[in-house]
C-alpha cells in the first residue's frame, strides 16, 4: 500500500474525496520501478490511479524532460485526459507540463515536442509508432520513467495491440528503466494482459492490482407490448417502450448493434417524439465533426438520449448518463458490461440498463446474458499470436529509425508477448519480405529496399522507403468508402463504395438521420440532396455485426436444452419452445440437431450450430459444396447467429457426411480461393505489411500513387507461391478466429463427440421459423456470384420479353432497362418502407446539436 504526500492528501480532502484503496495499492506496487496492471470496473478512478505515481514522483523530484508516456486507443480520450489531469496539477501547483500528440497535432507543435518534450506525453499507438521511426527517438525516450497504457483490454489481442506491443519492446530497449502501468476494465483473462504489459513477456513480472467490484448493475429485459416478433434484428417494434424509458430518465444511451440499425432506430424514435426531446445519433460513419458535436452536446447535458453503435463503447467519461438501453441481443457479456458501465460512471451506484430483444431467439440470448452478468462470467478471446503483417511493418519502421542487427531485433521482438513464440524462420521471412518481397522467383533483387553492411547491420536504402512507410503506418485499414456530401453543403459521412455503385440518380436512402436523394457522383463524393420520394434504403457496412460469442452461445444452448430453466423466459417464448418439443426435439447441449423438411418446391436443412453468423456463413459455403458433390443440388443458404439453413432441389440424406471434419480440407481450399472474407483478410494483411498502399483520400487520381487491386494479387500469389509469408499470415488469421474457422472445427468436433440428431420432418419446425424469415439472405462470393449474375441476366431477358436478343440490330434495343426497380421492390414488403418514408420527414435536419 503506497502513501500519498501531504499535498496530495490535502487535495483529495479539499474535494471531499478519499483516495481509493486500489489507487494506493497501485502506487505501492510500482514504487521501486515494478510494473503493474490495474483491473477495475468503469468509474473507479483508474486513470488518476495510473498517473498518481508519476505525479508523486515529479512532486518529490521535479525535473525537466519526458517522464511519462500515456497511450490510449482513442485520440479523443487522450485529449480529454490531458484536460482532466490539468485540474489537479494546477490545483496542487505541480511543475508538470502535459501535452498530447496525435494525428491532429499541428506540425509546429510536433517539431517543438521533439526538441523540448513535455513531462507527460499523451498519445495513441499509431502516433507512438511514428515517433519511434524518428532518428532522434533514442534521445527523446532515453530518460523515460513510466508508460501508462489505458484501456489495455481494448488493445491487446488486436492488430493495434500487436503494433503497440512491438513499440513497447522497442521502448524497453531505448529506456530500460521505464516501468509500465496497464489500466483495464474487468476481463475474463487478466494473465494475457499482464504478459502483454510485461517488459519480459512473462505475466508474473507484472503485479496485479484488482479494484473492488462495483455495484451489481440492474438489468431489465423489455419486451414489446404486442406480439413478440419471430424474426428481425432491428427491434423497431419495441421503440414505443424505449421512448417511454427515455422520457422517464435523465440521460439515456441507446446502444444498437449496427450502423443501419442506428439509423432506423433513430428515425423510429423521432417519429414517436411528440415531446421533441433532444435525441442524437452517433456512429462510426458520420464525420468526426458531427460525432464531436453530439459528444459535446451529451457532455453539456443538452441531449436526453443518443442512439449509438460501438463508436461509443469506449471513450470520454460523461458522468451523467442515467441509463443504458441495449437494442438487439448483446452478443457478448464483456461488451454488454462495457456498455452498461457507460451509465453512471460512479462505481458504487448500480448502473441502470435495459435489454431490448428484437425477436424470440434474442429473448433467450438476453436471459442468458443476464444470467452470465449475475454470475460474473465474462467472455473474452484467449490470447492470439501477433500478426506477421504487423511484424513486417515494424521491421521496416525499425530500419527507418536506425540500422539494426537481425539477431538483436529478433531477441527484442521475442520480449513482446504476442510474438513470444515467433520462429526465426517467420522472422527471417518477414525480413526478406521487407527487403524485396521475399519471393521464390528472385527477380526484384535490384530494387531491394534494405542492404547489409560488413558487420551484418541492416540499413535502409534511400529516403523513398521511409516516406512510403510513414504514409502507410498503422494497422487500421478502411474499406473503400465514398463521402456523402450535400449538394452545396457539408460532408455528412461515408458509405461503402459498393453501396453507392448500386444507386441510380433519384434513389433515396437514409443516412446521418436524414432522408437523402442520390444525385450523382463527382470526383470525390456521392452528391445528395435532402428529401426524395420512394422507398429509402439503408446503407449497410461489411463486417459491422458482431457475432455471438462462444460463451454466450453455450449458455443459450444450455437454456434451450433444460426445460427447468424456462420459467425465466416470457410466456410466448415458453409456448414456442413447447411447440418445438412437440413437433421436433430441442437442440442438445452437446451434439448437433439437424432438421430436414420439404417446403415449396425444395428441401430445407436447418442445423442448430450456435456458433455465430460468421462461422455459419463459412460453414454454409463448405456444407453446400459438399452437398453439391453428393448430388443434392443445393440452391442457397443463409446464416443467422444461431442456425445455418440450406435449401436444395433433392432431399438431403446421410447428414453425417455433410458435417464431417474433413470438410475443412478440400472444401476449405476451394473456399479459400473464393471467399470474400478471406480476400478482405488478405487485403488488410497486404496493406499493413506494406505490399499495397493505403487509400489516401483524394490521392487516387495521381497515377503514380495508384494502388493495385489486392484481389488480383491474391489470385496470382495463390497460384504461383502458395507458401508466401502473406498467404501464411492470411491462413493463420483465418484459423485463429478472425474469420471463425476455429469455431467451425469446434462445432464439428462437438457434433462428432455428441452425435448428430437428424429429425426428418414433414414441415418447418417452430424453432426454424426465425431463420426462414430472416431478411437479407446472404450468398458468399464465388460460385454464388455467377449464379446470381445468371439469374439477373435471365430476369433482364424476361423483363424485355425476349425482344432483347442480341444481334446486329442491337443499337435499336439498347435503351436502358432499369437495372433495379420492380425486382428490388418485389424483394421486400412495401409497407414498412412506406412508413419509413413518412416518418422520416419529421426527423430533425440537424441532429448534432438541437437548437
Amino acid at each position, binding site marked *: 500500500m503506497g502513501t500519498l504526500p501531504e499535498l496530495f492528501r490535502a487535495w483529495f480532502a479539499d474535494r471531499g474525496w478519499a483516495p481509493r484503496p486500489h489507487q494506493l495499492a497501485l502506487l505501492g506496487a510500482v514504487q521501486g520501478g515494478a510494473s503493474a496492471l490495474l483491473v477495475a470496473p468503469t468509474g473507479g478512478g483508474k486513470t488518476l490511479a495510473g498517473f498518481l505515481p508519476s505525479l508523486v514522483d515529479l512532486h518529490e523530484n521535479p525535473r525537466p524532460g519526458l517522464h511519462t508516456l500515456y497511450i490510449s486507443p482513442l485520440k479523443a480520450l487522450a485529449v480529454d485526459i490531458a484536460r482532466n489531469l490539468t485540474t489537479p496539477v494546477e490545483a496542487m501547483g505541480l511543475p508538470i507540463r502535459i501535452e498530447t500528440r496525435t494525428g491532429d497535432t499541428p506540425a509546429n507543435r510536433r517539431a517543438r515536442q521533439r526538441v523540448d518534450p513535455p513531462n507527460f506525453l499523451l498519445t495513441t499507438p499509431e502516433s507512438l509508432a511514428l515517433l519511434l521511426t524518428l532518428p532522434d527517438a533514442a534521445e527523446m525516450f532515453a530518460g523515460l520513467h513510466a508508460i501508462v497504457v489505458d484501456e489495455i483490454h481494448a488493445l491487446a489481442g488486436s492488430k493495434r495491440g500487436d503494433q503497440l506491443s512491438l513499440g513497447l519492446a522497442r521502448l524497453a530497449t531505448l529506456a530500460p528503466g521505464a516501468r509500465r502501468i496497464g489500466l483495464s476494465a474487468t476481463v475474463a483473462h487478466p494473465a494475457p494482459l499482464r504478459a502483454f504489459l510485461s517488459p519480459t513477456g512473462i505475466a508474473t513480472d507484472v503485479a496485479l492490482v484488482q479494484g473492488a467490484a462495483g455495484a451489481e448493475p440492474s438489468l431489465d429485459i423489455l419486451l414489446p407490448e404486442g406480439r413478440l416478433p419471430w424474426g428481425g434484428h432491428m427491434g423497431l417494434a419495441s421503440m414505443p417502450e424505449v421512448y417511454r424509458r427515455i422520457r422517464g430518465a435523465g440521460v439515456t444511451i441507446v446502444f444498437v448493434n449496427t450502423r443501419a440499425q442506428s439509423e432506423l432506430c433513430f428515425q423510429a424514435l423521432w417519429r414517436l417524439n411528440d415531446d421533441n426531446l433532444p435525441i442524437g445519433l452517433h456512429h462510426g460513419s458520420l464525420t468526426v465533426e458531427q460525432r464531436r458535436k453530439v459528444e459535446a452536446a451529451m457532455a453539456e447535458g443538452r441531449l436526453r438520449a443518443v442512439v449509438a453503435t460501438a463508436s461509443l463503447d469506449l471513450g470520454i467519461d460523461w458522468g451523467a448518463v442515467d441509463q443504458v438501453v441495449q437494442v438487439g441481443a448483446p452478443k457478448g457479456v464483456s461488451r454488454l458490461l462495457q456498455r452498461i458501465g457507460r451509465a453512471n460512471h460512479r462505481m458504487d451506484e448500480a448502473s441502470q440498463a435495459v435489454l431490448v430483444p428484437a425477436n424470440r431467439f434474442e429473448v433467450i440470448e438476453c436471459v442468458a446474458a443476464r444470467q452470465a452478468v449475475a454470475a460474473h462470467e465474462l467472455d473474452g478471446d484467449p490470447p492470439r499470436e501477433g500478426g506477421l503483417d504487423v511484424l513486417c511493418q515494424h521491421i521496416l519502421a525499425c530500419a527507418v529509425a536506425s540500422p539494426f542487427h537481425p539477431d538483436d531485433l529478433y531477441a527484442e521482438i521475442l520480449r513482446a508477448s504476442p510474438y513470444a513464440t515467433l520462429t526465426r524462420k517467420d522472422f527471417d521471412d518477414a525480413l526478406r*519480405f521487407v527487403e*524485396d*518481397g521475399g*519471393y521464390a*522467383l528472385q*527477380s*526484384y533483387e535490384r530494387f531491394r*529496399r534494405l542492404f547489409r553492411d560488413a558487420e551484418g547491420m541492416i540499413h535502409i536504402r534511400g529516403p*523513398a*522507403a521511409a516516406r512510403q512507410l510513414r504514409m502507410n503506418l498503422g494497422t487500421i485499414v478502411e474499406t*473503400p468508402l465514398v463521402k456523402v456530401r450535400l449538394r452545396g453543403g457539408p460532408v455528412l459521412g461515408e458509405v*461503402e463504395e*459498393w453501396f453507392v*455503385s*448500386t444507386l441510380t440518380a433519384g434513389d433515396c436512402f437514409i443516412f446521418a438521420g436524414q432522408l437523402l436523394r442520390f444525385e*450523382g*457522383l*463527382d*470526383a470525390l463524393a456521392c452528391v445528395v440532396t435532402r428529401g426524395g420520394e420512394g422507398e429509402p434504403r439503408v446503407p*449497410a457496412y*461489411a463486417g459491422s*455485426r458482431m457475432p455471438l460469442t462462444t460463451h454466450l452461445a453455450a449458455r443459450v444452448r444450455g437454456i434451450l436444452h433444460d426445460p427447468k430453466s424456462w420459467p425465466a423466459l416470457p410466456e410466448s417464448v415458453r409456448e414456442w419452445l413447447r411447440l418445438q418439443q412437440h413437433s421436433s426435439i430441442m437442440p442438445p447441449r452437446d451434439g448437433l440437431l439437424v432438421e430436414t423438411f420439404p417446403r415449396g418446391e425444395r428441401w430445407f436443412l436447418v442445423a442448430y450450430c450456435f456458433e455465430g453468423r460468421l462461422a455459419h456463413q463459412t460453414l454454409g459455403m463448405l456444407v453446400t459444396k459438399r452437398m453439391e458433390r453428393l448430388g443434392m443440388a443445393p440452391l442457397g443458404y443463409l446464416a443467422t447467429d444461431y442456425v445455418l439453413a440450406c435449401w436444395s432441389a433433392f432431399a438431403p440424406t446421410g447428414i453425417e457426411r455433410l458435417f464431417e471434419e474433413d470438410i475443412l480440407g478440400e472444401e476449405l481450399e476451394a473456399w479459400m480461393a473464393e471467399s470474400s472474407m478471406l480476400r478482405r483478410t488478405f487485403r488488410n494483411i497486404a496493406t499493413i505489411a506494406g*505490399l*499495397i*498502399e493505403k*487509400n489516401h483520400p483524394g490521392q487516387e487520381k495521381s497515377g503514380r500513387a*495508384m494502388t*493495385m487491386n489486392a*484481389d*488480383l*494479387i491474391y489470385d*496470382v*500469389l495463390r*497460384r*504461383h507461391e502458395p507458401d*508466401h509469408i502473406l498467404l501464411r499470415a492470411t491462413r493463420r488469421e483465418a484459423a485463429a478466429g478472425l474469420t471463425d474457422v476455429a469455431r467451425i472445427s469446434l462445432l464439428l468436433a462437438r457434433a462428432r463427440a455428441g452425435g448428430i440428431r437428424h429429425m426428418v420432418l414433414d414441415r418447418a419446425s417452430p424453432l426454424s421459423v426465425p431463420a426462414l424469415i430472416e431478411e*437479407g*439472405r*446472404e*450468398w*458468399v462470393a464465388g460460385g*454464388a*456470384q*455467377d449464379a*446470381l*449474375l*445468371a*439469374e*439477373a*441476366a435471365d430476369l*433482364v431477358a424476361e423483363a424485355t420479353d425476349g425482344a432483347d436478343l*442480341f444481334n*446486329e440490330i*442491337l*443499337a435499336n*434495343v*439498347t*435503351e*436502358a432497362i432499369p437495372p*433495379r426497380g420492380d425486382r428490388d421492390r418485389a424483394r421486400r414488403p412495401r409497407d414498412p418502407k412506406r412508413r419509413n418514408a413518412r416518418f422520416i420527414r419529421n426527423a430533425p435536419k440537424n441532429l448534432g446539436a438541437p437548437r
Partner: protein
Amino acid sequence: MTAAPLHIAGQRLMLDPAGFAIWPAEKLLVVSDLHLEKGSSFAARGSFVPPYDTRETLERLALALRRWRPERLVLLGDSFHDRHGCARLHPSDCAALQRMLGTLAEVVWVLGNHDPEPPVGLPGIAMAEFRRGPFVFRHIADPARGLPPGELSGHYHPKATMPVRAGAVTRPCFLTDGRRLLLPAFGAYTGGLEVRDPAIATLFPRGGRAFLLGPERLYSFPTGPLRGAAREPELAGPSLQSG
C-alpha cells in the same frame, strides 16, 4: 466455356469468357492490355507485388491459343506496362512468348500509350492502327474520326457493376453498341474502369451492351446512357458484401 457470338459490320465475332475475341473468318484472335511486367514496374517504385503476373498472363494467352488455334494474333496495345517492360522479361517468360508467337502466321502489335515503341526481339510487326476487312483495330477508341463500319479497341479496361439480389457484382466486361467493341484488359494485374465513367460512356451515347466475364460463360446486360458517374480506375471491385 461458352463463347458468345456478336455480329458487327456483317462479320461474326466470338467473345470468349476469358476476355478476348475471335474473328473466325480470318482465324484471328484479338486480345488487349496484357500489361506484361506490371509487377516489376511496381517493384521499381518500391511495391513488391508478386512477380508472377507475366507468367500468369502468358499462361492464359497460351491456353487461348491452344483452344482456338488461330493463325493471326492482334494485340491491341499496352502489351507491356512500360516501354522498358520488354527488356525486363524473365528469360523463361521471354522464351515462352517467342515459342507461342512463332507458331502464328501473323502477329500484330498495335502500339498503346504504355508501350509506344515496338517490342524488341519478339516476332510480329508493330503499328499504330491495323485495318482488315471492315474493321479497324486500335488501342484507344476514336470517336472524332467518324465511325468505321467496325472498331475494336482496348485501353479503358471496362468493368461493369451489376446489382443482384445480394448486393452487386463487379466484373471486367466487353462493351459494344453493335459497331464499336471495347475489349476487357487481359493482364493478370489489370484493374478496371466502370463503364458508367464518362470516359467510356461518351463512346456509347446511345447506350450499349456489356458482357461480364464469368468462368464458364458471359453475362449480358444493357447499359444505359451516361448517368453522371466518375470513378477512379483500379479501386478494389466491391464484391458481395453486406453487414
